[in-house]
């Protein structure tokens, strides 16, 4: 597991380096890569973009290094704050937000929508084809509720609906609750 994590870290660092290299192709002189016409954009812009990328790369590396410690005896994730802080964080529950999310989950149609989105982003007509029992206007209003609760996000350009990380977690949690209830009924 430790070796796998190390390998993942190494790959991620390579990917970040790759992204930086790709960005260079945007700002590098075209004539260095192939023939054609060129415009020069000025070193301030080039420096600015380079600064941005360096900032991102350093940020990612810094966070990785602060959060994950790889030593001679293996790898461990550093959790900031002791048990006390974790306990305190648990106490700071945003109840209105939780209630909104729970309320959004509290409808059979909305759970079905989340279920469809678990397999990937979908356009509203694709959802409509899958969920024939829901009318188009009702589907739109359900999606609005889910979006407001932060369980779904809509792409503004393509228009697809995507399930968010909290949405995925909430859906899994709701199915687990259903399983617990089912098990309780069987007992």
């Amino acid at each position, binding site marked *: 597991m430790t070796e796998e994590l190390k390998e993942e870290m190494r790959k991620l660092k390579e990917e970040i380096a790759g992204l930086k290299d790709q960005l260079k192709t945007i700002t590098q002189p075209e004539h260095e890569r192939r023939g054609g016409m060129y415009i020069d954009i000025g070193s301030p812009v080039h420096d600015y973009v380079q600064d941005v990328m360096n900032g991102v790369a350093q940020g*990612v590396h810094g966070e990785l290094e602060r959060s994950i410690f790889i030593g001679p005896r293996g790898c461990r994730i550093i959790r900031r704050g002791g048990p006390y802080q974790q306990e305190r964080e648990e106490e700071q529950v945003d109840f209105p937000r939780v209630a909104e999310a729970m309320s959004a989950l509290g409808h059979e149609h909305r759970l079905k929508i989340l279920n469809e989105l678990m397999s990937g982003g979908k356009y509203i007509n694709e959802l409509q084809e899958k969920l024939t029992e829901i009318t188009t206007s009702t589907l739109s209003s359900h999606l609005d509720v889910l979006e407001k609760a932060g369980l779904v996000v809509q792409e503004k350009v393509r228009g697809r609906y995507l399930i968010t*990380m909290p949405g995925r977690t909430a859906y899994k949690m709701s199915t687990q609750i259903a399983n617990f209830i089912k098990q309780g009924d069987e007992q």
Partner: protein
Amino acid sequence: MWHHYELDSAMLKTDQPLTLWKTDRGIIEIDKDTFAIAITQDGKPQGYIFNGNGKLTLDTIIETEQGAVGKPTEKTLTEPFLMLGNPQNITPHLTTTTNENNKEFTTKAENFFHHFFKNGKTFNMNCGCHHHDEGLIFAFSNPNNRPDLLVLNDSKIVYKAKHMTFVSDENRDVLKSPEHMVVSNHGRCIIIKAHN
């Protein structure tokens, strides 16, 4: 190579709504009658500074195996912004205008031009860039802050705003925001949440 960019003196305006850039990730549109001043190099337009009503929409969202991260970015463009590249598609839709009310825009455009290129109207550059048929640069002015920058080349997108950096190349993305940092490659990702 040494080149000079200059801000043209002629005031122009768009004769119809224009889409300056559009992909499945984002779109920049400006309304009819948006003012424009050409940025020239050796007398030829290489880009424009626009001022009017416009809108930037960019889906700064990353799809990961654990769910989508980020929100769409929507920015109303009422302050001057700069576009470098692709002038051949814009120039035919610009007409000259002599409206006296344009002086405010002229001053704003000059200030923004100076601010963006730092060294003034004519300055030396020794750095190359993709040909403008393929690459575009947008800079959006921000009061009391560095301009938001959008660099585009085919499917590659780099967007840097005050509180967000978004880099995308097809299925490989990086999103850095105050809430989290996400690095994703074909859905596989690492997500680091901010510690407040």
